[in-house]
């Protein structure tokens, strides 16, 4: 399977983090464990909230798609590990002048970088970059088209684990625009690899991918049926373009049918947790009572995001086999 060959070194260590696909439960659990230890860095009276783990390394944020939120968390994660960070918003520079993706990469490599964090509008872009960049560079996928957003999925898994400890008995529902969602695809893979009992997707047919069951989920088009007895509800963000693309009539109808409110939550387990990758459209995906309510763990997702990204960066940069290392300091 291509992704396994791509992301792992010969001895099975994680070199790139492009997709949950091809990674086994042990590896995913390692990432969660390491991230857990990074979450403690924020507390415990540290004057300096950094560790020198990646000191001397340069991490470049290559964002071909704009995203201040995600880019900032990656930047914070890198800085907490004492790495140097370069931010490149390509959407405003070279490639809009016609420079090919490959040329952009070659120019960047001349700047002696150790890691690219890439976000791009085309599915497969992160794989493409990992395939073509210099052998010593690690690539982290910060979202490629509708394909994969593995760090988001992992921070969601960490959040679930913090509340539910064991994945095995869980029923998890993902609600919203599954068709266009790289977050959903990565979450489904992670949940199934970690061994949950059931993953459900809930959406109108226009927002479901072809033969959604083939992704390893049960498909629902009715929210009430779909969230019955679930332990976790993940609400996906609804993009405005879906209304203009004849996929949905209005946010109003979407909220009526698929929006999460307190009374609908009663259908789920009493200790259900509500998640959202952010930013929330209040009144569309959920009302404020749910967003700020006792079931919501949305804010924890944000801080877990930094810890997960620190974990992934550490693992990838610590995995390179001898012959691929750059000059080491003595």
């Amino acid at each position, binding site marked *: 399977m*291509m*992704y396994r060959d791509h992301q792992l070194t010969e001895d099975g260590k994680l070199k790139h983090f492009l997709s949950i696909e091809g990674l086994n439960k042990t590896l995913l659990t390692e990432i969660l464990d390491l991230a857990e230890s990074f979450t403690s860095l924020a507390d415990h009276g540290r004057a300096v909230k950094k560790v020198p783990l990646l000191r001397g390394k340069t991490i470049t944020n290559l964002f071909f798609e704009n995203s201040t939120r995600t880019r900032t968390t990656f930047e914070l994660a890198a800085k907490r590990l004492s790495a140097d960070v370069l931010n490149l918003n390509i959407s405003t520079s070279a490639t809009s002048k016609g420079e090919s993706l490959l040329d952009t990469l070659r120019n960047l490599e001349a700047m002696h970088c150790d890691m690219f964090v890439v976000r791009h509008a085309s*599915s497969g*872009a992160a*794989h*493409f970059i990992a395939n*073509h960049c210099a052998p010593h560079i690690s690539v982290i996928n910060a979202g490629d088209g*509708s394909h994969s957003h593995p760090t988001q999925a992992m921070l969601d898994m960490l959040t679930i684990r913090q509340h539910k400890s064991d994945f095995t008995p869980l029923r998890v529902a993902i609600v919203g625009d599954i068709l266009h969602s790289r977050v959903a*695809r990565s979450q489904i893979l992670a949940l199934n690899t970690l061994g949950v009992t059931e993953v459900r997707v809930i959406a109108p047919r226009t927002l479901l991918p072809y*033969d959604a069951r083939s992704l390893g989920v049960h498909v629902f088009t009715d929210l009430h049926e779909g969230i019955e007895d679930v332990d976790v509800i993940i609400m996906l963000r609804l993009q405005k373009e879906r209304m203009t693309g004849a996929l949905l009539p209005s946010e109003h109808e979407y909220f009526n049918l698929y929006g999460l409110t307190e009374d609908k939550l009663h259908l789920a387990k009493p200790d259900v947790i509500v998640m959202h990758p952010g930013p929330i459209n209040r009144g569309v995906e959920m009302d404020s009572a749910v967003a700020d309510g006792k079931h919501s763990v949305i804010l924890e997702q944000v801080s877990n995001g930094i810890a997960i990204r620190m974990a992934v960066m550490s693992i990838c940069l610590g995995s390179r086999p001898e012959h691929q290392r750059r000059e080491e300091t003595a």
Partner: protein
Amino acid sequence: MSSTNQSISIINGRLIDPANQIDDMLDLHISQGHILAIGEKPSGFEAEKLIDATGRIICPGLIDLSARLREPGFEPKGTIASETRAAAYSGITTLVTLPDTNPVIDTPAVMELIRRRAKQSAHARVLCLGALTKNLNGKELSEMAALQNAGCVAVTNAGKPLGNTLIERRALEYASTFGIKVFIKPEDRHLRNDGCVHEGIISSRLGLPGYPEAAETVAVARDIALAEATGAHIHFQCISTAKSVNKINRACHDGINLTVDVAAHQLHLTEMDADDFNTLCHVDPPFRTLRDREALRQAVATGSIQAICSDHQPHEPDAKDHPFPDSETGISALETLLPLTLKLVDEKVLDLPTAIARLTIGPATIANLPFGRLDQGRTADVCIFDPDSHWQLNANEMISHGRNTPFANWEFRGKVTQTLFEGRITYDLDTQHERQ
């Protein structure tokens, strides 16, 4: 070096000419660029050149109904000289090229330019499909009668959309006024949206925009209805779905004049092959499901699909060096046209004479060409190949400028040994001789 006037005898080979239902150990004698005799050599005839075809197959030179030569306008991808040379190497003696060059083939002048270039390198015959609309803009009709006079085989909009169904109806009616066939790659561009792989489990998993089956079948249904309404002769190019084949079959059954071809690569690969974002598998129409592939194979075997083409689209390496949705579509396919077709014989989809028919008399009949057959007096376009020669495709050694093929490193059985075009040897493996 072989000149037009050299007389040639091809002996000891197995001659397969489906047009004349011949499959026998027969010799072929050529003189003055034409076929002099089949079987016994005429008395008093002594060939200046003898080709020993022991253990080999002799068949008509192959005819490819869809091959982009990229010239004029896209020379970094290929030229008439380079691509016709690749054709000769592959046993292809007639290429039908599409009008989406730059400038577009919507005037006799551009056709003349292409004809001259082809004659200069003289590796193969290049025939043109003329543009259906001016500059392929989908709005205004081109001077089809003039193009026909200048020798175009048929007209097409080269896969570019027509403004609306009214324009399509009028274009079909106008073409049919002069008995000009219209080649159509059926596609509803709105349903296609920005699809780049078949809308199926692979597109769902990879999050790639899907190109639904309906984008082709809706267009096929529409085009069939318009063919019926206008009496125009439509040829469907590069069909990809089982459902399209069914629709076309039923329409033919109802007496509507339709023909259809399929690209060789669609008979082998499926959507699964794009699974790892392999841009070499980024083609248009996309590879479909296994069921579609089986239906296409069946249709080729029974003759519901009359011809196999290459859909040759050579590219410079950069074109494929992008994330999947941003890469250009197409395969450099001349050199695998015959090999992939012979593979179908190996896989017992169809027998050898039928396979050869799909590459010779099939396309000749569709395009109304006096080629693809070995009758006495016909121009001597001949392909000789060794059906037992095992070889492996090495992308770096391809003759075409384009090395973009997902069949790199595939093993094939059957290799062209000689190609004759108008009685001249344009390729000869035996003497390591290729006409420059």
